């Protein structure tokens, strides 16, 4: 009932700008058919091959996260009709073991399970697919999730050999150019300097270690008890993993500046300014607002819209630059309306370039750090960003957030979320 609200409403009536029929005010409205998030969590994210999840299978991580969703939300597991898990490296798409994981987690056999693979955006795609299933009336309650065990499943077997036909088509053949090489080329072509990448990466480490020290990840991380083999003694023990072990304190642009480039002698990309190889799982419980109110679920936020775009395979890093404006177009938002952008830090070079090109201020991007600091378990990341975003928006008392990432073979995805 503030005068400013009244003035802006009047202003919109006169200018005809979409204050009521679109834009921020419209997005913030609550409707019974909104798709809302009533639980969002993730496991800790741990270093691939060396971290605390190195001996834990992807399905075990997923089972833990799914059980966490039941425990935290208190939902009757029999009400969940479909679970979609984004996972990239699992042989056979991971379909069998994810179905099994849902049973372990406590879901009855009436809950359907499927997996999908849209590379680095698999976790987001899973959430979006489930939201759309609910919106279309196919199901009432569903879970979008993502998982990756890069410790156990990362390797050259992840891509099938290209046929002669594919190799004969130049742009098609570009789809299998390794990420590191094409990002190196893109950084060079777009003039993203090593110094700016290192500074961006150092700030990701700084933000993440500060957030970790302040306990800002506590709400989103589900502690998980796993078996772990001590590499020194060779003995296997049970540990509880409740913090991201890739986050390092004291990383500076100078210390990163000393690391040798990984993909080219005169290159700019190295282990310190690219995303870490990691293990982790995340899950998001989705339903209509009317359902949530009927079930007495606590609403964390809502899903508004998502966009998917294609870009040249060699320029896969520019995905967010194209996907974010598209989701703005779908929602009538502008970048000023958005309080936090969670843009996956596949490489400092591409994340930085996209942010600069879109004119997004640094302080709005990944306020708790990103994949450079704590890792990028491929299929998990998109679902992980949802809990990272919603809890941070809530903590700051802010409302609108965007999650986005570039996708291998040249795609980009973005989604708009509102914290409530």
């Amino acid at each position: 009932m503030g005068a400013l609200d009244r003035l802006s409403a009047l202003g919109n009536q006169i200018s005809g700008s979409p204050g009521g029929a679109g834009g921020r005010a419209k997005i913030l409205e609550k409707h019974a058919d909104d798709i809302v998030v009533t639980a969002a969590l993730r496991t800790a994210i741990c270093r691939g091959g060396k971290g605390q999840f190195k001996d834990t299978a992807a399905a075990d991580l997923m089972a833990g996260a799914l059980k966490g969703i039941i425990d935290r939300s208190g939902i009757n597991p029999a009400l969940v009709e479909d679970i979609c898990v984004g996972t990239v490296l699992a042989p056979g798409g991971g379909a069998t073991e994810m179905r099994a994981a849902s049973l372990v987690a406590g879901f009855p056999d009436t809950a359907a399970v499927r997996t999908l693979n849209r590379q680095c955006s698999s976790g987001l795609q899973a959430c979006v697919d489930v939201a759309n299933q609910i919106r279309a009336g196919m199901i009432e309650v569903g879970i979008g999730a993502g998982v990756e065990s890069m410790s156990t499943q990362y390797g050259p077997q992840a891509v099938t050999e290209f046929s002669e036909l594919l190799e004969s088509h130049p742009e098609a053949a570009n789809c299998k150019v390794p990420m590191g090489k094409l990002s190196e080329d893109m950084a060079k072509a777009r003039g993203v300097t090593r110094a700016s990448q290192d500074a961006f990466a150092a700030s990701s480490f700084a933000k993440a270690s500060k957030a970790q020290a302040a306990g800002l990840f506590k709400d989103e991380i589900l502690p998980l008890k796993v078996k772990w083999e001590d590499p020194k003694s060779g003995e296997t023990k049970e540990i509880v993993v409740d913090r991201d072990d890739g986050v390092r304190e004291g990383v500076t642009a100078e210390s990163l500046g000393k690391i040798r480039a990984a993909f080219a002698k005169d290159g700019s990309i190295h282990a310190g300014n690219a995303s870490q190889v990691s293990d982790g799982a995340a899950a998001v419980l989705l339903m209509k607002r009317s359902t949530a109110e009927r079930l007495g679920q606590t609403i964390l936020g809502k899903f508004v819209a998502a966009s998917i775009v294609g870009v040249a395979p060699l320029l896969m890093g520019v995905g967010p630059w194209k996907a974010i404006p598209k989701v703005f177009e779908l929602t009538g938002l502008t970048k000023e309306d958005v309080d936090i952008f969670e843009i996956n830090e596949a490489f400092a070079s591409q994340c930085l370039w996209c942010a600069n090109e879109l004119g997004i201020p640094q302080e709005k991007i990944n306020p708790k750090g990103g994949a450079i600091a704590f890792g990028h378990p491929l299929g998990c990341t998109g679902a992980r960003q949802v809990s990272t975003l919603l809890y941070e928006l809530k903590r700051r008392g802010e409302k609108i957030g965007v999650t986005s990432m570039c996708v291998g073979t040249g795609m980009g995805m973005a989604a708009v979320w509102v914290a409530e």
Partner: protein
Amino acid sequence: MASMLEFRTPGFNPYAVKYSPYYDSRLAVAASANYGLVGNGRLFCLGLSAQGVVVEKAFDTNDALYDLAWSEINENQLVVATGDGSIKLFDLAVPDFPVMNFHEHNREVFSVAWNPVSKDNFLSSSWDGTVKLWSPTRTASLLTLPIGCCTYSVAFSPSNPSLLSAASSDSHIRLFDLRIPPSANYHLAATIPVHAPAPHPTRLGQATYAGAVPAEILTHDWNKYADTVVAAGGVDGAIRTFDVRSPVGGPLAVLAGHEYAVRRLAWSPHARDILVSASYDMTVRVWTDGSTMPVPGAGPGGQGTISTGAQLGLMNRHTEFATGVDWCLFGAGGWVASVGWDERVLLWDAHTLLRG
């Protein structure tokens, strides 16, 4: 335009004007200080006398007033829509304070409408995204209908006491029928997407409606003769009429002319095709929706095209946003009261516009 009566509301910017349904010489104006942004409201009850327009009664409120409705069962009573979320019932025989206060809305109440058929209840709509049904004798609402977004305008069907409609900022008119069981849809009977294209041929002919950019709807009203026809106006400046029996069939008529948002419109109580509209473009315009005109090029019966109606007259004496307009129910039929942010109430005969 010879005969025009004027009344000034110094310090208050009117938002709405309504003629009494009982007396041809009485009308009321809901006005707010500082353009309704911050400050008090004042309700003026005006009388027409040999000395011109005089104040019969005035009531002050703590927050802005955005609308009013005369009681249909007591000639001395009327309700006002207040910025603090309350609805107040004033009685002209009781000085200074309201006789009833209805406070359930969480935000500004933007419109009130009294049931013209059953006469024993009234509606309110609010920025809080709800419409509420009230009895004048009870402080708690009888019913709350969820809309989900700011609802600027609410109205009863003039012929059916159970049928009501709400126009909101999401470019939709929602029709509620209180005879429908209160299922998950809360009595919702139909939804008219005002700006949506009509993909299928409307009525019998080939016409389709291409649609328009969705915009907020600020006002709507039911035709007093064709009881299934509703007119709506809003931010895009166009007035559209719809047949509620064909909610997604597209508009019957699109009346274009206003250069800014249409803030208020009212169908004539005297003729089936006439309506009047007040706009932020400072004009008040009188229209025919074309329903009584032969349509050139159309088949027998004139069906199959969207009428563009015709503007019959334009009143441009207001010097600020024209915000309220109403027809007098009595007399030769054509007296209109209009109000605007220029702190003026103007009473004039629409016939003089038609001739001019």
